[in-house]
C-alpha cells in the first residue's frame, strides 16, 4: 500500500487527531508528517523554498515517530517554517536493534500574506498514541494539542 492519512473527529473535541497508514515504516512516517504539515498550513500555498533534514535514532519505533513529528512542531516555532512535503527513510529495527530515520522536510518561512495558515500545534501528545502493525500495514494514531 502507499501512505495515507485521515483526520479523526471523535477523539479530541478541542484538538485534532489523525490516523496514518503505510506499507512500510518509511511510508508511515511520511504519511504522519504530511498530516502534521496539513494541520499547520495548506501545503498547496507553501513554496518549496528550502529543505530541512532530520536524523534520529531510537530503539522504539513509536518514540522515533513521536520525536519526528515533534521536530516539525519545533521547526514551526524555533525557525518559523511551514512545509509542503516530507519524505523519509526508516531503517533498522531488526533483532531489537535501533531504528534510524533520515527525514527531509520541504517548505518555506512562514508568510501569512502568501500562505493559508491553519492551526498552531502546541504539542504531539501521548493520548491514545499508538503505532501498530496490522495485516502487514503500519498504522499510527496521533492526537495533537491545538
Amino acid at each position, binding site marked *: 500500500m502507499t501512505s495515507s492519512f485521515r483526520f479523526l473527529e471523535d477523539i*479530541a473535541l478541542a484538538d485534532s487527531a489523525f490516523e496514518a497508514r503505510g506499507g512500510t515504516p518509511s511510508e508511515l512516517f511520511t504519511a504522519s508528517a504530511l498530516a502534521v504539515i496539513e494541520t499547520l498550513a495548506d501545503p498547496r500555498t507553501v513554496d518549496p523554498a528550502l529543505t530541512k533534514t532530520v536524523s534520529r535514532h531510537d530503539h522504539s519505533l513509536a518514540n522515533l515517530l513521536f520525536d519526528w513529528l515533534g521536530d516539525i512542531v519545533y521547526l514551526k516555532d*524555533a525557525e518559523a517554517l511551514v512545509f509542503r512535503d516530507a519524505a523519509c527513510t526508516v531503517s533498522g529495527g531488526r533483532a531489537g536493534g535501533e531504528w534510524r530515520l533520515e527525514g527531509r522536510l520541504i517548505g518555506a518561512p512562514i508568510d501569512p500574506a502568501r500562505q493559508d495558515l491553519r492551526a*498552531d500545534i502546541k*504539542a504531539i501528545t501521548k493520548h491514545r498514541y499508538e503505532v501498530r502493525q496490522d495485516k502487514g500495514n503500519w498504522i499510527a494514531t496521533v492526537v495533537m494539542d491545538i
Partner: protein
Amino acid sequence: MHLQTQMTVNKISDQIWEIPASEKPGMLVPARIYATEKILTSMDSGVFEQITNVACLPGIRRYALCMPDGHWGYGFPIGGVAAFDRDTGVISPGGVGYDVNCGMRLIRTDLTLADVAPRLELLMTELFRRVPAGVGSKGFVRVNRKEFAEVIRHGARWCVERGYGWRHDPERIEERGCIPDADPSKVSDYAVERGMHQLGTLGSGNHYLEVQVAADDRIFDKRTAAAFGITGHNQIVVMVHCGSRGFGHQVASDYLKLFEQAMRRYGISVKDQQLACAPFRSQEGQDYFAAMNCAANSAFANRQVITHQIREAFSTVFGQPAESLGMDIVYDVAHNIAKVERYPEGELVVHRKGSTRAFGPGRPELPEMYRETGQPVICGGSMETGSYVLVGTELAMRDTFGSTMHGSGRTMSRAQAKRSVRGEQLQQQMARRGIIVKAVSMSGLAEEAGFAYKNISDVVETVDLAGITRKVAELRPIGNIKG
C-alpha cells in the same frame, strides 16, 4: 437524568455532584463536579473517567474537583482542580496542561463606546498590526538566550523594567507577575529555542485579544465592579487570552517524557499515560516545578508585552498617552498552573487546569487593593457571546481550594464547526452584529464560532449559585483578534 457515564453520581446540592471513592478501584478520595443538572447531562464521558482517574493520584486531598466548564482534556479534564500533600503527594504536567499559565488579562480604559465606535475599525487594524497572532508568529521584543533566561526568571517584572509596562502593573497580576521558584537551568535548549522569539504573541486556537463594552445593565455588583475599575456607562475594556507559547508547550512535553521513566523508579502507576507524575519532593518533581514556573513567568511576560502594545495602539488611535486613557490592568489570572498554597491541612500543591484561582477576601497573596473585595476572576466566553468578571469568595477557600471556572468550555469538534460555517461567512455575520473580527486564519476563525461552545452564562450562573465566585460584570465584545 441521562449522563454520559455508567458511574454512580450522587447529588449533593443543585450545583454539586459526587462520584464516591468506591466507584473505581484506586480512588483515594471522591470526585466532585460543579454543575447544574442541565450542564451535567451535557458533559462528555471523558470528564467522569478523567476526574476519577485524578482521584487515584498519590497524596490527593479531600476531592478531585471539576468545574462546570469541564470537558475532556489530556490526563486531567479541562476544568480540573486537585490538591496534593506537599510532602507525600505528586506533581503532574497533565494537571497543568501543555500551555503552562495560559491565562486571562483584563485592561480597563476611561473610554466609552461613543468614543471608540467611530474609530473601531482603525483601532482593530492597529491592534492586529501590533499584536502578532497565528501559526509561528514572532514578537517585536528581540532577546538573546541570556536575556530570555532573565525573562523566564522575572516574568512581567522584566518587562516593566525595560519599559514594557507601568511601575504598578505587577501589583495587578497573580503572583505579582513573577513566581520566585523559577530555575532556567531546568528547561531544555529545545524549549528555549521554541519560545525565545515569541514574546508578545497571541498564538492561535482559542486565544484572542478582544475589545469589549461594560454596559450599566450588565453590572451585577456595582461596588465590587468599581473597586476593580469597571465603572459601566458603556466603558471600553480589553481582554487578552494567551499563554506561554512554544516555550511552555515544550516544557510540558519534556517533563511528560521524563516523568514516564520517573514513575517506574518511584513505583507509581497511573490510569492514563498523560497523568504521568512524580513525587513533589523528588528531584524530578522539583525540577518540573522550577521549569513550569519559568514557563509561567514567560506567560506573564507575554501578556505584559501584549499589554504594552495594546496601550501603544490605543495611544496612536486616540492621540493621547495611555496613562491619560486610564488603561490600568484590572487583573491577570492563570488558569493552567500548579502552585503551593496554604490551607487548613497544611501546604498543598494545587493543580488548576482550565480553572482559575478565586481567592476570597483577606488572603495575604492578594494585592492590598483587592484584599477587602476578594480577587477579580476573569472568564472568557466565545468570541460571539459575552465574557465575565467574577470575584473570589470565602466559600471557594473552604470548598474548592480557592478555585472556580475559567471559560465556557467547548462542545463541538473543530472539524464539525468548520463544516457548519466558513470563516469569511462568520466574519461577515459578526460584523453585521457590530463585532469586527481580524483573523490570520479563516479556518481557525470558523473553528472558534460561538455555537461550538457552551453558553457561558449557564456556567457562570452555576458557580455563582454554588457560591464559589460571585458575578460582578458581563462584558460584550465589539472587536476581536484571532490567530
